[in-house]
């Protein structure tokens, strides 16, 4: 899907993606010539079709996790389907603040390991020693993890 600014005859560039949480998706595109911004709004079924393909509007910000679509989208999964992801302890493995642990505990078991790993990778790449709710919020915004 591409957007053309008819007046300028320019391809519009992707700007931002938003997942309001009601099953819809919003993506904005901007004309590089005149600066006009348009929003593409998809209904829940259209959004679902994109999710079904295992692709990310706006591009991937983190590598695909194993069985990502299955973990995110299966509604009848076992809580204990996956062993908690274990990463070898290294000197720069970040710790989790109690508040962050509590927040992580609210993530359904089926996807918790995957979500945890994304936050750990984010923190390690940036040299963050402790994962706090604020770090999680920043990571969500930067990585486009609105649903996590």
């Amino acid at each position, binding site marked *: 899907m591409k957007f053309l600014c008819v007046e300028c005859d320019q391809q519009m560039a992707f700007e931002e993606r938003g997942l309001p949480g009601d099953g819809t998706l919003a993506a904005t595109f901007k004309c590089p010539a005149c600066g006009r911004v348009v929003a593409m709004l998809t209904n829940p*079924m259209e959004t679902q079709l994109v999710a079904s393909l295992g692709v990310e509007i706006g591009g991937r910000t983190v590598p695909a996790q194993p069985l990502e679509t299955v973990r995110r989208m299966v509604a009848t999964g076992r809580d204990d389907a996956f062993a908690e992801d274990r990463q070898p302890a290294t000197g720069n493995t970040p710790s989790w603040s109690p508040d962050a642990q509590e927040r992580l505990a609210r993530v359904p078991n089926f996807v918790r390991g995957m979500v945890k790993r994304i936050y750990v990778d984010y923190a390690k790449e940036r040299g963050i020693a402790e994962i706090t709710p604020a770090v999680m919020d920043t990571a969500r915004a930067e990585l486009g993890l609105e649903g996590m």
Partner: protein
Amino acid sequence: MRTYHDLTGPDRSGLAQQIGAQRRRVAERLAGVGRVIAVMSGKGGVGKSYVTAHLARGLARAGRAVGILDADLNGPTIPRLLGVSRAPLAAPGDAVQPVEGLDGVKCISMDLLLADGQPLAFKGPEAESFVWRGAMEASALREFLGDVAWGTLDVLLLDLPPGMQRYLELCDILSDPPVVLTVTIPTPEARDAVRRAVRAALERGSQLLGIVENMVGPQFSGTAADDLANEFDIPVLARVSWHPTPDTWDGLAGRI
């Protein structure tokens, strides 16, 4: 006004590249697999999963490294046939470890992921879910191929559900159409349904390995396997009675 293909500027979403990366992930994951064999039939209830599991065990007893991908997402039975426990799956790196069943056969199955007795249901809008459900199942199949640490295998058997849908999805996901092993029962009704599936497989360029005729005995009459073998010039690899012994499967494994 310019059209889609006239716009050649960079696309930050890179959806085509993301799809390409998914395909590469599958190809890389299967690089250590000698042969991918789809066990299929146009007919339900002919014993595809039963044949798949016992063929895999026969191959394993013969010293081959074997895995089964249970592609019947809505009616998965392979873990039970392989005596696999429902322990949590380990995903230590960028892939999920397959579980190991009888005779060392590796497997992955939706059965290992679903809550007890629950059907496979996806999150999403319920209205007209048929529009996206097929795509979701195809994605799950792709992830079973690309996100499972199959390692080095001589054979990866894909246990397909009845019909052609999953086979066609496989052809889209894999770089080459899979080799096909066909299962039927002796009846003319099964033969007619299986014939359609075999034709579809041929049209997509699959190599036909042969036919396994299952449930052979006085309960069913017919010559489905011979009819299909003659029509498509493929071998009948095994005729499996209602109470086969391990010799039956070892014999079939020897012909794969």
